[in-house]
């Protein structure tokens, strides 16, 4: 595999579009970006004069703040638009919002949207580079990249790592991006969840799918817990929180089956007592706060690399 010196696309829409060498390039760049966060003056002039629009159609605190911080550390001018209070709630279509933004000549648009493929729609309308900050049940590429950076930091590699991803797989964009990234990079991925929440197509990626948490975590280097939304707990996916925690909750006892130096990750926000025991969330295995720090560095890397690509 030869080292990539640039990203092939002007957009980051999905991990599916990235080559392994491009993933390495982003992660290597993120390592360099991370150092900036340790300085007294945590700011570099790399994107001075560039405009980044943060278009958040879906509630998100940590991803939005993480992108904003990344943009500010790179000295970009940023504008934030959230669904509440914008023309979006007045019935304007995404395409019209995009055209309006386009008139302001942004260099990069970061979009979070409840509909899968919304960033793709934007990429067909806008000249700006589009960064997918989470679209529906599709992908959350920067989350998978920051997870990969965290794993690489802690384990020194991605290839050959055994990773269990546990929870509501069906509705999770974090699962999709991580499954794509980790299998591309040669990790062994196991996905575990109740049968009502397992999407099709995972085995085709080379992911081992199981409904047994004990089987999933056996000897793994990494356990990644996914959020289970409370609204899935009634309806027909799951009978109760209690039964979910019994079958799929991550406890210190369950973790004993994993490798002795296992790390536990969670994209947040966590539901303590639903998918994860507090003793695990706050225990020595947890790298959840590393993930947050790495999120800023990875987003700086993505913005920096995309800013170099020519506007079409």
């Amino acid at each position: 595999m030869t080292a990539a010196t640039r990203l092939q696309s002007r957009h980051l829409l999905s991990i599916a579009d990235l080559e392994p060498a491009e993933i390495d390039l982003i992660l290597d760049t993120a390592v360099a970006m991370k150092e900036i966060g340790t300085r007294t003056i945590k700011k570099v002039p790399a994107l001075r004069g560039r405009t980044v629009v943060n278009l958040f159609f879906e509630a998100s605190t940590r991803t939005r703040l993480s992108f904003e911080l990344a943009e500010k550390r790179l000295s970009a001018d940023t504008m934030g638009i959230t669904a509440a209070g914008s023309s979006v709630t007045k019935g304007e279509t995404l395409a019209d919002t995009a055209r309006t933004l386009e008139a302001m000549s942004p260099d990069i648009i970061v979009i979070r949207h409840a509909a899968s493929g919304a960033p793709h729609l934007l990429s067909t309308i806008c000249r700006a580079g589009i960064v997918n900050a989470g679209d529906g049940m599709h992908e959350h590429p920067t989350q998978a990249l920051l997870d990969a950076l965290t794993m690489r930091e802690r384990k020194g590699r991605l290839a050959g790592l055994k990773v269990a991803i546990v929870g509501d797989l069906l509705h999770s964009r974090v699962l999709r991006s991580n499954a794509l990234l980790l299998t591309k990079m040669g990790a062994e991925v196991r996905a575990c969840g109740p049968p009502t929440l397992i999407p099709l197509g995972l085995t085709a990626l080379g992911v081992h799918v199981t409904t047994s948490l004990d089987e999933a975590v056996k000897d793994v280097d990494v356990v990644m817990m996914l959020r289970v939304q409370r609204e899935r707990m009634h309806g027909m996916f799951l009978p109760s929180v209690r039964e979910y925690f019994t079958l799929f909750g991550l406890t210190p006892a369950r973790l004993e089956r994993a490798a002795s130096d296992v790390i536990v990750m969670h994209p947040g926000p966590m539901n303590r007592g639903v998918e994860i025991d507090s003793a695990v969330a706050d225990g020595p295995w947890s790298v959840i706060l590393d993930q947050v720090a790495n999120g800023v560095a990875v987003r700086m890397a993505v913005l920096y690399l995309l800013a170099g690509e020519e506007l079409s």
Partner: protein
Amino acid sequence: MTQVGDAFVLKGGRVVDPRAGRDGHFDIRIENGRVSAIGKDLPLDGARVVEVPAGFVITPGLIDMHVHLREPGQEHKETIATGTWSAVVGGFTGVACMPNTEPVNDSASVTQFIMKRASEAGFARVYPIGAVSIGSMGDQMTEMGDLRGAGCVAFTDDGKPVATALLMRRALEYAGMFDVPIIEHCEDPSLKGAGVAHEGAVASMLGLQGIPGVAESIMAERDISLAELTGGRIHIAHMSARQTLRAVRDGKSRGVQVTCEVAPHHFTLNDEALRDGAGYNTNLKMNPPLREEADRLAMVEGFRDGSIDVISTDHAPHHADEKALEFDRAPFGIVGLETCVPLCLDRLVHAGVISLSRFVELLSASPAALLRIPGGTLTVGEPADITVLAPDAPVTIQASALVSKSKNSPFDGWQLRGATAATIVGGRVLYTNPAVSGADRFAGPAKS
């Protein structure tokens, strides 16, 4: 455009008319809007002569029994005039239109309005299909006798399934009295849920909520059982899933009066297309959705073995603004009238799946027989509804050039072999295809 009364002879063309048992070179004489003679070396008697170019094929007028004309109520998508002109350009001399207009075609007054508008437009013939239930709400059965009297040829709650098994049972029993079929949009609402694409690996990885194939087949199985119970006629609309085809075959083998139709997109495309380009092309969003390759192949096999009765387009025009939305929010449906003939000729006839004769059955004879409407064959004394095909003409589909009011086609840029050369309705040559060499011979003499 030729006028009624203009007598002319289509000379020496290959005529494919399976219902009449004809496949060979015949002359067809047309007078006063009707076929006045069919035979070899007909006397000309001063009539205008159209020497049919070599390779052209004369067939009974094609009939699309599943079209959404959108009028009344959604004239920004299509009108009866634009839709029936789109039909004529596509080679269809007749269309059956679905009742999910605004208001729903659940009363004779709406049916009469549609018939009146169709007659004013003067393009393809229109056969309205009435709603099974008032407002297609699934509660109260419509006045089927009244609707039948006004011109409805079948009943359906298309857009959604007939809500309950009990209503479907009653509809089958009641409609049987008028010898009209119930057309079913097969879909179990709970299994469909908020689905927007076929439930499979593609939708899963694109993060789109899925609609499993069995959402269709479960409803088809219910309806086939009810047709068996009642002796009524059930027609499965826009079949897409292999499980449904299996249910239809089972029903037919038991002697149930079940028929089915398949739309061109379900035998030419599969769900992988959703990944093409930037992905999430809303012109690939229709209901039932593009299924996986196994389903597409099953449909092709259904044509090969004769299990499928009809090809219909499910022509569903939507304004470009309505489609320029997030995939989840865009409406279901694509236009189909003007792309049907090239797709069927290229992907079924030239691909060796079916013969030209079978093509005519699927697109003309069978829908006419099913709906008990005139046409489907060329008969002396009957209206001259004729489609002229140029099966070897190259075609490049251009969505922007479609005459339908809406351009929501996923086939833009497709290069296919097989075109409509001319469309004749009631003895009037309404359309000759400027892109097909020799088609202009069918045009009548210019009127001063």
